[in-house]
């Protein structure tokens, strides 16, 4: 398993380099202009100067190699300096965002907490509610619980979060006044009171996203359970005289979880991608919002860096999913 993992990681390197080039080319081909959003009163020659100052005058391969150097060499060196307090020296230019003129990696680090808190928590909550719902739905297939579960999943899956988001804001912020409609990213949890506030401001975005996540995962769990419930080995377990709980929770569930766990692992990069719409609706201003405003603003270095990091995460979690599969299912053996 270890050699397998290492081999996969090594293989990932050329893949990622290719991906970074493709992203770069695609972004370069896409019509986008970092000065497009400036007020019309700024004349074309000033715009041209701005573009030149951003380095857009250089040929594409220079810009790509520059990005590679900044991202693969300068950023890691900078990170080492920061973590260990070393002074490696040298004048290194980091990947700079065009919109903010500040290092992209700093922006990402700054936005990571709120995205992980809100989107990550919603994923955890989504999984935690999806699993029991999926299990019970499958075990009591076609019962009213299953019917309601199916309906709720359908709603959760098909109703977009910009609708549910605004709906809960209108109900819980405007009418009832229970929760803030705008997320405070500067809020620091220092004591019980501030912790309560943090919970309060997280409830709505987390609930909205969790509903969406849970809808997907519970369907998956249900299908996987149903697959296994009709397997012969389940009958064997019953014939052995095992308790029903053991039959369902030990035999059926453990086997059903294998594909579900890998699906959950594959979904993790989405957390880092942020939930663009939900972040926008609740003003969480995390990574998803960073990506979307960078796209809107034609901020290529930020878009490039973010998409590349997502690509890394996707590849990484694909590997995690595969390894998990191997760990969980004795029938799968790598090497």
């Amino acid at each position, binding site marked *: 398993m270890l050699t397998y993992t290492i081999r996969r990681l090594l293989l990932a390197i050329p893949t990622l380099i290719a991906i970074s080039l493709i992203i770069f080319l695609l972004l370069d081909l896409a019509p986008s202009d970092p000065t497009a959003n400036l007020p019309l009163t700024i004349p074309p020659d000033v715009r041209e100067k701005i573009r030149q100052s951003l380095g857009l005058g250089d040929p594409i391969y220079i810009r790509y190699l520059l990005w590679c150097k900044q991202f693969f060499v300068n950023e890691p060196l900078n990170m080492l300096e920061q973590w260990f307090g070393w002074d490696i020296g040298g004048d290194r230019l980091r990947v700079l965002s065009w919109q903010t003129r500040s290092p992209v990696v700093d922006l990402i680090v700054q936005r990571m907490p709120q995205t992980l808190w809100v989107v990550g928590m919603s994923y955890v909550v989504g999984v935690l509610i999806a699993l029991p719902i999926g299990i019970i739905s499958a075990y009591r297939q076609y019962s009213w619980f299953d019917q309601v579960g199916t309906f709720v999943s359908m709603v959760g899956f098909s109703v977009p979060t910009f609708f549910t988001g605004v709906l809960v804001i209108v109900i819980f912020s405007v009418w009832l006044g229970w929760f803030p409609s705008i997320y405070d990213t500067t809020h620091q949890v220092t004591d019980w009171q501030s912790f309560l506030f943090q919970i309060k401001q997280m409830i709505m975005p987390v609930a909205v996203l969790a509903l969406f996540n849970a809808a997907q995962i519970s369907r998956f769990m249900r299908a996987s359970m149903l697959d296994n419930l009709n397997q012969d*080995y389940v009958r*064997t377990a*019953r*014939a*052995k005289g095992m308790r029903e709980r053991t039959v369902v929770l030990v035999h059926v569930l453990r086997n059903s979880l294998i594909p579900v766990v890998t699906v959950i692992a594959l979904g993790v990069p989405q957390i880092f991608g942020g939930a663009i719409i939900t972040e926008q609706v609740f003003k969480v201003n995390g990574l998803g919002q960073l990506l979307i405003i960078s796209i809107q603003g034609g901020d290529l270095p930020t878009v490039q860096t973010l998409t590349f990091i997502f690509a890394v995460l996707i590849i990484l979690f694909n590997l995690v999913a595969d390894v998990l599969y191997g760990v969980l299912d*004795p029938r799968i053996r790598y090497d």
Partner: protein
Amino acid sequence: MNEAPSAPLVRVRGLKMHFPVHAGLLRRHVGDIKAVDDISLDVNESETLGLVGESGCGKSTAGRAVLRLYDITDGSITIDGTDISNIDQDKLRHLRPKMQMIFQDPQASLNPRMTVAGIVGEPLVEHMSLSKNERLDRIYELMDAVGLARSFANRYPHEFSGGQRQRIGIARALALHPKFIVCDEPIAALDVSIQAQVVNLLEDLQERFGLTYLFISHDLSMVRHIADRVAVMYLGKIVELAPRDELYATPLHPYTQALLSAVPEPDPVRESQRKHIILTGDVPSPANAPVGCNFCTRCPKAEDICRQIDPEFREVAPGHFTACHFVTDTTRKTAGSTAGNEANT
């Protein structure tokens, strides 16, 4: 041996297992699949009752229903003096050690995420209070009994061959000292070369532990080899039940006759002289069984009455039961002579 006078260990009367069929948007109940439709049989202590029939006729369902792996639709099942037909699952659980099942598909019936020791040991944990070491001893003992090397204890099912897997299944079934085992085509999924080994193992074990088998198979020669008495099923019903030799010598029911006529004779001379009864048409769906005799759509002897009245399953000779309008005590000679000619000449 086949006329053992002792009270039957298993007694089944009027057993029905219907699976409801739902359809439409609201999943309304639109009918039933009558997988097992009113069967009665006894299995005596230490004997092997063979249950044969074509694929889909309801053998597995019958076997599972007898062990109450289903909640049955109707009928009564008494095992070792206890009526288990309506007993709730929790009480039933405590009776499970007495009655076990060996499944048709050794691969599918073993939990892929459990080791051999886990699979065999799990019922021991549940039903016996053994120390860890005692349990391990018992596992080894069982593995020895079915001819598995002890070193395999920590392996997973997928690491074994088909025959070995079936041995695991057998060891598992034996773990709790059962009296009665339903063997649901235990050899159907195996290579011919291994089939004999497993059958011999089952016979050995029967001898050693005084087991009673309900041996389900569609292989008539195998049943002839292992069974003491044989029941023939067609479309959810038992059409004939008789001691083995009698059944093979003088099959009374037209369906049994047709089945036996299809069994190849080892002797080529006799084989060439044999008359084959070819059945035409398809087996009707158990969801939509014909009125009257179940076999009437394909029976070469069917007459009008067959399409109106369901023949009664009755004893036509001592220990020989069948369900056909045209088999009676008095007609037995005629029917017997035909059957006899076919089977014995």
